[in-house]
């Protein structure tokens, strides 16, 4: 089992959560008396993001703390951190130093802009990475400001890239015995997840802009129903769609032959949208999605939070997992496995640890520090 030291703030918490899901032992290292990442730490999702981890405290800014850290690093396979570039180097525990302590160590650094380049020392945040990486400009309506995707998605995607990088570096280590450093930039992770945006620019000079829920190539759009919202295709299986509307007396003039022409459709898309909207407003989301999917339309319920948590599909597959809060005994739901492994099942993990919850077990039980040493470390504020 791989051991992962997690020194991240919100930018990287998901990375070690993913590794824990695949069976790694993750030790979250926090600053004594508080969270490693200070006020902006967790955000509301940190409970889930830190589930299934062990927790210790350690002051890396003290000499004693760094001595203990060196011993801990020797027991670890992976270290994930998200400090500003140069911070760990300034403490003498950057990658070059740690590589000497433990050559097989795989270290991943998740930062706003990466370890080099003109913006290296700039500050970032999820919304800032989303802006500089290109997500925001193309999201929203033409008359609204650019819009951030819901949740800290820049942090999550950076964590996914970092986790893939860590698995690659571990695989490489089987052959070489050596670890390496992985440099992850939030901005690059966003710019690497832009679907059509860069492709259209590099292959035709088009600068994509915002157009609400209308898909960039007019394939999809959100419509209101009597009881919620539905995602419909606009031109997919056109004749089947028109026949369906016609059978309900809602096709209006779309039955005309001229509407079969793709150019005609695109030129008068507004009209098609209006006709479809008059239809969807009289119908319920569930019935349209069910019937549409039977007819191979890739339609979807625009599910609210309650909608997807309670969806029969996710329920049947047991996606959400109940986790018990140890103090209150209350249970809550965490998202489960992002992928179902048939032989090595994903580990969801329990409620996240309190800061320092595993100090004694790890410092005394595993690193072999004496009770006296531990008392001193506590007294001096090292752990």
């Amino acid at each position: 089992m791989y051991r992962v030291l997690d020194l991240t703030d919100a930018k990287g918490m998901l990375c070690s959560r993913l590794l824990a899901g695949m069976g790694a032992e993750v030790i979250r290292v926090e600053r004594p008396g508080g969270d490693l990442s200070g006020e902006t730490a967790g955000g509301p999702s940190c409970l889930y993001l830190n589930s299934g981890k062990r927790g210790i405290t350690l002051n890396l800014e003290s000499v004693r703390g760094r001595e203990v850290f060196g011993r801990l690093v020797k027991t670890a396979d992976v270290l994930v951190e998200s400090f500003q570039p140069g911070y760990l180097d300034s403490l003498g525990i950057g990658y070059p130093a740690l590589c000497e302590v433990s050559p097989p160590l795989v270290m991943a650094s998740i930062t706003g802009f990466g370890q080099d380049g003109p913006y290296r020392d700039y500050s970032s945040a999820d919304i800032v990475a989303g802006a500089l990486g290109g997500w925001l400009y193309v999201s929203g309506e033409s008359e609204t400001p650019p819009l951030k995707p819901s949740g800290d998605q820049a942090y999550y995607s950076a964590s996914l890239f970092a986790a893939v990088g860590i698995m690659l570096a571990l695989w490489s280590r089987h052959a070489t015995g050596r670890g390496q450093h992985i440099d992850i930039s939030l901005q690059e992770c966003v710019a690497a997840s832009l679907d059509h945006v860069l492709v259209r620019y590099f292959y035709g000079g088009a600068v994509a802009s915002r157009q609400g829920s209308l898909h960039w190539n007019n394939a999809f759009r959100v419509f209101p129903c009597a009881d919620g919202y539905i995602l419909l295709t606009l031109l997919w299986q056109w004749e089947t769609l028109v026949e369906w509307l016609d059978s309900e007396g809602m096709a209006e003039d779309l039955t005309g032959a001229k509407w079969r022409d793709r150019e005609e459709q695109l030129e008068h898309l507004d009209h098609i949208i209006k006709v479809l909207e008059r239809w969807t407003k009289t119908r319920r989301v569930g019935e349209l999605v069910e019937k549409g999917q039977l007819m191979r339309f890739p339609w979807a319920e625009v599910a609210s939070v309650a909608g997807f948590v309670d969806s029969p599909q996710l329920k049947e597959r047991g996606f959400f997992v109940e986790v018990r809060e140890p103090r209150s005994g209350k249970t809550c739901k965490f998202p489960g496995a992002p992928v179902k492994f048939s032989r090595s099942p994903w580990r969801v993990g329990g409620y996240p640890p309190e800061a320092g919850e595993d100090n004694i077990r790890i410092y005394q039980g595993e690193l072999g520090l004496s009770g006296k040493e531990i008392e001193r470390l506590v007294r001096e504020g090292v752990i």
Partner: protein
Amino acid sequence: MTDESILHNIRILDFTWVLAGPYATRLLADFGAEVIKVQPLLPEADDGFGRGYYNTWNRNKLGITLDLDKPEGVAVARRLAGISDAVVESFTPRVMANWGLDYESLREVKPDIIMLSMSTMGATGLWRDYAGFGPTVQAFSGMTYLTSFPGRPPLGPGFSYADHVAGLVAALALLGALEYRRETGEGQYLDVSQVEAMASLSGSAVPGCTAGGGGLEPVGNSSSEAAPHGVYRCKGDDRWCAIAVFDDSQWRGFKRALGNPAWAGDGRFATLAGRLENADELDRLVGEWTREHTAGEVMALLQREGVAAGVVQDARDLANDPQLKGRGFFIELDYPELGRTTSDATPIRLSRTPARYRRAAPLLGQDNGYVYRKLLGMSEDELAGLEGRGVI
């Protein structure tokens, strides 16, 4: 050893198309996996954009043609699975089963095969045969609903984010399964539901899963942890800058960057709690300042004081971004049909064994010779026969 790509001895048989699946296998091909992309005898897309899109997500892969609607084609696919470490596909669950290429069948030819399916809804469940693309996945998983402004209809992201997420999850799972096979000698079946992969990133929205109650409704660009936090209009046409101010020290930096205007000294803004409570008023005042400056000036003035700020960049800005360019984020490859082409590099930067960009996407059947002759050891006669019967 260190000269070799990490995955140089891993072969992946790739039946995927569009974005999610190809993105997964591109991540691994960039690090040396031998990805054999199996394509029908007709090209995936023919227009300029379609070819660019295909080329972008399929670099570093081999391409073969194979008609799986012919029994002979299926037999060839089974032989290919027999010499592969992993098989990846993104159809609805019934498709591979109908061909006789489901996991149980492939285990007969390769007992330790790793098979990864990445359908919209997963391989089981009432809705398993639902079809979908990125927007479908985003709608079912709550992403579309939550990505909007308060009180407005759902918008969702303006790109298929879910495809990238599913691709990343799939690549991660494949690497995890390779580790497991190395330890135990056993392969396994990996069932990715793209909706679940996307929903696994919605932790902050699920009630009870959150310390603060979670976001059941869309919040636009605002945050419960920072104010000002948003996107502010700047000088020029459709130019904007994102700004995020979390703690008091950042707030002091923010005020310095603006030259400590009188309004910023208002006691209501002295604490984060106060700034959050008066966020609308704060946004209006910040917007009055940003409107007087270009987005680049706003970013530079704020970053100089340690405040997180960034221009809302469009595609042209990205292609000219000094940070992205400075780190070599855009790479060039020659594609026979299109000449020199540009695409994004992998953001996974490994110090010792970096990604390599060896070749553009394969033309239709470009690697038939290598794969069928060299890897499967087919004779010229056999190859000619398959070609003649329209199997490859």
